[in-house]
């Protein structure tokens, strides 16, 4: 695939903490970790999805003014950023594995609508829905 979405970014409160979470706890890989002064371009990838990068960015100066940084930090911490969906082969197994690693689940796996889903948050407050892929999709 040569066309399509390459990077979508999340705001996180701390990039080291986010990196540890997405890599150690979720099993993502680092794609790019480049620093320039205080600025850090950090993206991770799902191991099965090499064409897509998830950016882990902090709201920060000089791109944003201090008041905007504060508002964005509040919005993330309140869990008010848009929904994220992670698709897995086996929701219950992923739940067990991730919980053992210390992921904060906000909903245990539930069977409904011919699938199984659970919910978790990253340390910053970004909320993920984890949905088991339906057979044949």
């Amino acid at each position, binding site marked *: 695939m040569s066309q399509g979405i390459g990077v979508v970014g999340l705001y996180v409160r701390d990039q080291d903490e986010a990196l540890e979470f997405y890599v150690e706890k979720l099993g993502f890989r680092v794609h790019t970790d480049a620093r320039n002064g205080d600025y850090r371009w950090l993206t991770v990838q799902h191991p099965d999805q090499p064409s897509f990068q998830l950016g882990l960015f902090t709201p920060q100066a000089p791109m944003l003014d201090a008041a905007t940084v504060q508002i964005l930090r509040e919005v993330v*911490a309140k*869990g008010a950023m848009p929904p994220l969906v992670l698709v897995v082969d086996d929701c219950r197994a992923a739940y067990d594995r991730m919980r053992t690693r210390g992921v904060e689940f*906000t*909903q245990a796996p539930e069977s409904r*609508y011919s699938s199984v889903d659970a919910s978790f948050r990253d340390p910053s407050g970004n909320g993920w829905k984890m949905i088991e892929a339906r057979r044949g999709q």
Partner: protein
Amino acid sequence: MATGEPSKNSAKMSPDPKLLRRLLRAKDRMDAASHEAWPVRRLARVSGVSEAHFARSFKEAFGAPPHRYLLTRRLERATALLRDTDLPILEIALQTGWNSLGTFGRTFRDVTGESPTELRAREQAARHELERVPACFVSAARRPGLIIAVSEKRRQESDGTKETQEKPELP
């Protein structure tokens, strides 16, 4: 700012994002088990703040006092069960955190404007094209927008007035 407790009278301080993250944890816990009882003491413990500050901090963060937020989640769940199941209404009331059918029916009607039976009949008559949207988001989008206290809503409707003055609420 270091403690994350809001100041009382001074110009409004920016909330500490770390405090907000902990308040979010209390909100998440109510979301996960809205049928359970959530006294302020229990919520404050989840968030690691004092009981005295919890209700106000929560309201500042999420726009509604915790008990009212909980009420909207219970009604949301009851609505989904009315729509998607054939469970008796008493069973739905008990499953979603009410102790009696009377209180459930009255609160439901006062907030949504129709009785549980009416809602069920209307929803089940109309089939939805929302199968492709994850169910929890569909459900959340239909959460009742309860921006005032239920008691105030009842009062306004019986008076025929539309005052927005809000009485102090007990958590």
